[in-house]
């Protein structure tokens, strides 16, 4: 593709770019070089990704149309056009997912002894076993709801599987029916005594979707809706089950909370409740569903036909996580890469002394997340610590960090925590944490009105012999011990006095203790982070124009902001070499002659979710390197509290520059983004294979090994103590 024509935008639509990203994930599910259970996991990821995409993105487009907000996006598409394009893409995508499971994964899994049973092919033994399960575990959880064309819409919670049955009934018999007591009077009369009625049976979330059966050879499993389907007719004695199907609705999750409300906490609780009953944005039904039944569902759920998607295979493939997680098939999974621990940092009272000597940088998940947990655990017990300040966006279920914060408060330290209640889908857990922390005596701040606090920041204030000293953890990822072993992120532990003051000033500003004070090194969104990025890009432009070296290398999750993209285009045109490593959405068109010749974009999908955000500007040879919590999206730069942190320590800086280089030299599990927003997998060809995540892990292991070897050269004589 050449330079965009006049009527062609210089931006890619963000939704379509996102679908491209999900396609890359799906490509990994179809990649025979990837271990089988990892492929299953990738397929499950594409499904859960899509759910969120519908809840948030499609939800917001539908909402825009509903409210007559029809302005076009930077790519020139109106919301309606975008939805049309999304539908086309998703229909194709769903087919790919289904064929991936049906034609590739199911046979491959079966060959390894992991067999998915279908209701049609069951032995008598199996059938009686399933009946047992049905009688004992499933039947009692059913609470069917009768529906009709008229009257109230049944409340079907989002993201839950549900069965729908069409039944022929006779008036005399219906009173005995198990399900009839709900609303037996609302059926459609067919002739005289006979009439048809519809019943919805939501499958409770308390039941596992995947039911494993004992097997001699390996593992056999069946989806719960299939078991239910086998015995469904028994729910309606004396009636005829004409048809049954499975369905799943997705509800809009894109609405804003009123954060000026007097009682923010109860407002938040209500908000979560509302989301479960909000507008329906997608209905998935099994392929076999009759038009009669589908029309009824469309009316009852008040959903547009264009938001209905039929599935030829099982619904909700995210349930495949249970299969990819099967513990007994280690050989079908990637080899374990145990996190490397950092020799310098031990969980001991001297923990802070080490950070006091040098900045410590950690590349997760290759390097252990433990030091970040210790940072707070040691602080909680350290008598010299007077205060701890921390932001929490998403954290794990059993968070040691949160417990350390509570312990610190109980030990008499001044602990202030910003718990972002608006972290989407984590609201409930965060509410619980907030209440727990408050009861321990922590000063809890529930975010900032109008902004989400996305910055990852923890500050420990110590009173030492030489005076007040601050230790700061800056991160690109959440304070979540579980995801820290799955996401690639960067941690910086530092005692740099200026960064310490800046961090405290940032924290004070976020907690409303002060108007923002001057920050020398740190930059904060929405105040000055965007402008700093623009300045840094423009500085490269000036250097390029002056004939000097000028380049930018950056890694983040999304590139959407039109203002920043235009700056990058201008930089490219001025001769600045730009290499971007963007995991997800990229609205920039790379390599367009005259527009973006000097911009190259790659994307990496591998065993760890790429999540770290690292920036490197040549800056006339100064090599300015930053880590940041912000993606290059309008929401991050303008509507969230984010930090841009300079990495100054030469060793840390070099490690990050190397890290960026490794990605750009990669040819395994790396894609190149094309001018039209599509992608091409980079192949090693005759060159040696370079798989970036593996190289990064091995480099870290080697470094640790050489350090160990070095330390073993120093003999430590053991003497008798006097």
């Amino acid at each position, binding site marked *: 593709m050449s330079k965009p024509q006049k009527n062609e935008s210089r931006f890619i639509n963000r939704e379509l770019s996102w679908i491209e990203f999900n396609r890359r994930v799906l490509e990994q599910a179809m990649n025979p070089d990837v271990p089988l259970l990892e492929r299953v996991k990738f397929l499950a990821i594409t499904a859960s990704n899509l759910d969120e995409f519908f809840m948030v993105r499609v939800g917001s487009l539908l909402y825009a149309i509903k409210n007559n907000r029809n302005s076009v996006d930077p790519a020139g598409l109106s919301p309606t056009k975008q939805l049309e394009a999304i539908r086309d893409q998703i229909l194709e995508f769903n087919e790919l997912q289904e064929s991936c499971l049906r034609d590739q994964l199911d046979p491959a899994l079966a060959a390894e002894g992991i067999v998915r049973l279908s209701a049609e092919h069951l032995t008598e033994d199996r059938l009686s076993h399933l009946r047992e399960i049905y009688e004992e575990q499933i039947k009692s959880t059913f609470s069917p709801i009768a529906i009709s064309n008229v009257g109230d819409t049944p409340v079907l919670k989002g993201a839950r599987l549900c069965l729908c049955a069409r039944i022929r009934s006779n008036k005399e018999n219906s009173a005995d029916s198990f399900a009839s007591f709900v609303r037996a009077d609302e059926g459609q009369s067919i002739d005289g005594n006979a009439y048809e009625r519809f019943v919805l049976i939501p499958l409770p979330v308390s039941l596992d979707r995947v039911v494993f059966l004992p097997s001699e050879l390996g593992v056999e499993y069946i989806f719960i809706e299939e078991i239910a389907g086998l015995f469904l007719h028994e729910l309606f004695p004396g009636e005829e089950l004409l048809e049954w199907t499975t369905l799943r609705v997705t509800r809009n999750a894109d609405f804003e909370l009123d954060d000026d409300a007097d009682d923010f906490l109860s407002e938040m609780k209500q908000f979560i409740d509302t989301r479960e009953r909000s507008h329906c944005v997608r209905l998935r039904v099994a392929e076999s569903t009759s038009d009669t039944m589908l029309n009824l569902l469309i009316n009852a759920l008040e959903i547009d036909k264009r938001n209905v998607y039929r599935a030829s295979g099982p619904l909700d493939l995210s349930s495949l996580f249970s299969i990819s997680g099967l513990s007994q098939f280690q050989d079908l999974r990637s080899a374990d890469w145990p996190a490397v621990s950092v020799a310098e940092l031990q969980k001991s009272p001297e923990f802070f002394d080490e950070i006091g000597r040098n900045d410590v940088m950690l590349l997760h998940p290759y390097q252990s997340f433990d030091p970040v947990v210790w940072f707070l655990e040691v602080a909680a017990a350290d008598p010299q610590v*007077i*205060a701890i300040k921390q932001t929490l966006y998403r954290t794990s279920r059993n968070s040691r960090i949160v417990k350390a914060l509570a312990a610190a408060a109980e030990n008499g330290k*001044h602990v202030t925590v910003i718990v972002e209640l608006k972290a989407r889908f984590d609201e409930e857990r965060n509410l619980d944490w907030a209440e727990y922390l408050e009861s321990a005596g922590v000063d809890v701040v529930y975010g900032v009105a109008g902004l989400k606090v996305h910055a990852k920041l923890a500050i420990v*204030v110590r*009173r030492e*012999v*030489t*005076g*007040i000293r601050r230790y700061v953890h800056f991160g690109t990822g959440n304070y979540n011990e579980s995801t820290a072993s799955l996401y690639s992120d960067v941690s910086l532990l530092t005692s740099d*006095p200026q960064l310490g*003051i800046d961090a*405290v*000033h940032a924290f*004070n500003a976020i907690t409303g*203790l*002060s*108007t*923002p*004070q*001057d920050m*020398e090194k740190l930059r904060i969104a*929405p*105040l*000055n982070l965007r402008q700093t990025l623009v*300045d840094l890009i423009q500085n490269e432009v000036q250097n390029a124009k002056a004939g000097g070296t000028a380049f930018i290398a950056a890694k983040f999750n999304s590139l959407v902001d039109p203002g920043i993209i235009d700056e990058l285009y201008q930089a490219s045109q001025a001769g600045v070499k730009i290499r971007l490593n963007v995991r997800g959405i990229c609205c920039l068109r790379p390599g367009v002659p005259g527009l973006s010749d000097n911009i190259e974009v790659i994307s990496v999908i591998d065993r760890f979710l790429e999540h770290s955000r690292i920036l490197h500007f040549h800056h006339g040879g100064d090599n300015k390197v930053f880590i940041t919590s912000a993606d290059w999206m309008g929401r991050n730069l303008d509507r969230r509290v984010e930090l841009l942190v300079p990495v100054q320590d030469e060793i840390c800086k070099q490690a990050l520059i190397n890290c960026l280089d490794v990605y750009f030299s990669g040819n395994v599990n790396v894609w190149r983004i094309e001018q039209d927003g599509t992608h091409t997998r980079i192949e090693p060809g005759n060159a040696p294979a370079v798989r970036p995540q593996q190289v990064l892990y091995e480099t870290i292991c080697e470094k640790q090994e050489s350090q160990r070897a070095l330390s073993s050269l120093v003999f430590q004589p053991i003497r008798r103590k006097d």
Partner: protein
Amino acid sequence: MSTVSSSTADPRPPRQVAVVDIGSTSIRMQISQINTDGSIEKVESLSFGVSIGKDTFAVGAISKKTIEECVRVLKLYQEKLREYGITDPREIRVVATSGVRDASNGLAFLDRVYIATGLQIEPFNEAELHRVTYLGIQPFFQAYPEIFSGRTIVCEVGGGTTEALVLEKEDVTYSRSFRLGSIRLRKALDAYDAPVAKTSRLLESQVNHYVHQIFAMGGNKPARYVAMGGEIRFLTNQLHRTFREGQLAEITIQELKEFTEGVLAQSPERLVTRFHINQAEAESLGPALYAHLAIATMFQSETIYVANVNLRDGLIKEIAQGYSWSESVQSQVIRSAERLGEKYQIDSTHATHVAFLGCQIFDQLQDFLQLDSRHKLILHLASLLHEVGQFVNVRSYHKHSMYLIRNSEFFGIDSNDLLLVSLVARYHRRATPQPMHEGYAQLDREQRVLVAKLSAILRIAIALDVTRTLRIQAIQCSVSKNQILIRVNNPSELAIEHAEIEKASQMLEDLFGVQVVLVNTRHE
């Protein structure tokens, strides 16, 4: 800050101290650490927008809403102080500038804050402001000697007033406060509801008068211009991006002009969203910059030097020095007194010599008289100025001296200290202090004793140069059982001095029960 209650700090482990500055547009707190070697490190700065100035300069009084807002902010700050364990009142200074001082309910404000928080607020007058400003810019003298080589005008444009200092090299020759403030200017703009196009003209008419006064104070000659204040710092930050604390940055008058015009062309609301500043800051930005522009233009200063220092830095420095003034500030104060003396045509040779003798007595008898070294400056100033009253009338001139000193523009001395100086000068002759005497009556016991002690010393110092010939130079004071011996080695007969000392020492005898005896060792 009162002189009496001060003490000299011993070297001790690092400690954290705090200064809260209740200004016209915001309440700011600076927490700093004073290290063992006396160096100062910033620990944390806080700021909160309030509309004290808007209330005071528009209505004359601080509204109840604003008072409660201030109380709320100060309570938050107190929580922060507790975090650092800063609880000793000597390590916390809370000062209020013109917004509170000029409010008709200023005292009620101080009381309300005291009741709610226990914080004692010191209302800060111009002279103190000038002293602290001088302390703030002092470090630049060494760092940028070329800028401070000639005459420099230093102006800080605040919400209610502009503080101006004229420096001749490193010495303060004049310091004055002008009722030229950004909030006052904004009020004028609002009152006339001036359209954007006429903003500049309206501001010009408001500013002109003061700019000419400042120009006159600066000798009606071009001079270098050093600008201070939040707004000009903000502008410099916009232009330079990294304008660090303690730096002196340069901007051109053209840059200032363009930026000011740009700001004045926009509504404050627009400035709030554009620059992420609060409403009060947005309202004062344009007017303050305009005032700087007008002053710089008047002094034909093509380059404007912007000093990134503030009141809080200076106050922290004073805490670090144990509330005792640095040598250089003392010498500025003394120069300021000498200039006042010249203005009233005193016998400056005599006055300077009396100060010289008085300080010798002070140093040698400090322990016996239980005096703090900071009190020496009070004696020094009173010695220099005790005769200024003769300008009015020789009759009862000591009373005129008191009046003149008390009502003069004086660099660096707060009103309480100025009262002490004027009283010591008043009691250098005739009646000894009486409880009903004006000024003296308002002193507490400790301060009354101080005035008496210093006046007693001043009387002896005057007696020693009664001949005005400077013939007594070095003296040796010592204390024996019930005598203070002042030994001199002088070729002359000192009969007049002997007689004079006998009269003058009465006050000291009354206070300490000791006799003062002059001994000329040459004639023993």
